[in-house]
């Protein structure tokens, strides 16, 4: 996908998350964009691996830095919790140039903001890792097996928390498909 078109989609998703009262730090952005790709099939084309707080993309981290360099987003620090990502007026101007693409994905981005906007980092880590295990790892369909895998990958997530996350992700998959 063309870089600026992708920037229009990313900044719109960030705006939607903020509208739903998301803190919208880097981790929130990472997980929401992972959901956009792997759950909603929005072709943003970032490569994710299991790393910090679950699925993480170094390419996406680099691109967020590029968006800062281009003045499309800025970091707003808030004592004592660290920065939130805020799309700028320039991002709105950019989005204006990509109305057709935004219309194509608008519902998907709104769905994600609804589902993820109110979640904190710990919740997002559990859900995103559950989605990763479900769609990318050949663990099998059983919720229990996937939960066990999730808990194995992230030992600080208990089996019960993992199972709950897997069930929530399954529910989201049902809603989407």
């Amino acid at each position, binding site marked *: 996908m063309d870089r600026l078109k992708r920037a229009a989609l990313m900044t719109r998703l960030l705006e939607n998350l903020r509208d739903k009262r998301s803190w919208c730090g880097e981790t929130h952005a990472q997980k929401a964009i992972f959901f956009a790709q792997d759950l909603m099939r929005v072709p943003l084309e970032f490569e994710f691996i299991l790393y910090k707080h679950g699925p993480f993309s170094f390419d996406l981290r680099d691109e967020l830095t590029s968006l800062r360099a*281009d003045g499309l987003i800025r970091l707003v620090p808030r004592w004592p919790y660290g920065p939130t990502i805020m799309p700028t007026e320039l991002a709105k101007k950019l989005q204006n140039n990509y109305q057709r693409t935004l219309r194509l994905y608008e519902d998907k981005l709104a769905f994600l903001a609804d589902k993820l906007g109110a979640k904190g980092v710990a919740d997002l880590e559990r859900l995103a890792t559950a989605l990763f295990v479900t769609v990318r790892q050949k663990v099998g369909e059983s919720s229990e097996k996937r939960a066990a895998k999730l808990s194995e990958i992230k030992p600080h997530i208990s089996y019960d928390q993992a199972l709950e996350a897997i069930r929530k992700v399954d529910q989201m998959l049902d809603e989407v498909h």
Partner: protein
Amino acid sequence: MPKHTHEIRDPIHVFVRLDNPERDVLNSKPFQRLRHIHQLALAYLVYPGATHKRFEHSLGVMELASRVFDVITNPNNVSDEIRNRLEPLGKADSDALRYWRRVLRMAALCHDIGHLPFSHASEDLLPEGWDHEQVTRDIIASKEMRQIWENMTPPLRQEDIIKLAVGPKKAKDFQFSDWEAILSEIIVGDAFGVDRMDYLLRDSYHLGVAYGKFDHYRLIDTLQILPAPSPGEENQHAGEPTLGVDEGGIQSSEALIIARYFMYSQVYFHPVRRIYDIHLKDFLKDWLPGGLFPTDIGDFLLITDNEVTASLRQAAFDDGQPGHSHARRIVRREHFKRLYERNPNDVEINPEAGRAIFNALTQEFGAELFRHDRYAQKGGPPDFPVRMRDGRIVPSLAVSEVLNNVPVVSVDYVFAQREIFDQAEKWLKKNRNTIIKPQKEEDDNG
């Protein structure tokens, strides 16, 4: 009595000390090759002092890596929360800790062992799916190096060395434990990677610029493994351990980040340096069989800056040689001149203004007369945990105005051949505003 420790003089760290297996690595063919790979490619054409090599940088990274390791594993610097989370820290001075210290030093020593001639300048000239980190991995796993790892007591697992040497970004097929992630962060980390610390200090020293200097002694002394604070959530640690500093290290962290900013904006992204890299890449495309470096390790290790430089000089003065025109631009200093440079006004109109201008120029005058160079700083913001005096752990960006305001470096240059420069400049002045105006999607035919 046989010597077990060997000292090497170093202008940055005074002495770098090696044990016997580390000296075996130093003596290996792949490592000795680094004596002939410039740290900063052709930067010596702009900064004549920039003739230092990957060899001494690799030694410096090893030295700093173990200094950081010793500080962050010192029991006085480890909280119970972290000790419980990271197994090797559970028992100070354990065999595990000693094992990982050796792995870390070897990984640091080898982290650049797969660099291509002229370092990053020729990075793209490997077959699809390859980069210098992949070559590094293959060299670490090669027979010659494997013998060194296997002969150590206890033997080092090559997989551990690879993971720490290239980090999770380039070892996507490996899963990293929290402990391994921390150790790789020591070498290649965004905030406090010693690779960066060493190259800033070393490049600064050799180039004769002061920008890259910062108080690395103080910074390293204040490093700690801390749980990452959870953004937006009071009193809740998301928990993943990461490298941070205690409050007293904030100023030296700021100095590191500012040093990076100045070195990037003044040295690494210097326009003449960038265009020389582009001419070099053009030359190599013509000079290399098939336009690509070999990936067979034996063949790869045969090519250094020396072979390329000799051919470059020959080609510059013989128009029958492959790559003659590109070589001439470098050797005779006939490089393309900067015609366009990114500026805030244009970025506001079109963040990809340079691309639009390059496309328009090549359409009007011809593709061979122009080069486009677009690159933005990699990595995230300088956000790391800080342990405050009252024990709270807060994000660095919440406590440092300086870190919040360091600009991101991004370049967008268009270069033109000297003969066409004046004409192109006039044409661009007349058409620039139209060229950079972004097209709305609805206007497309597609």
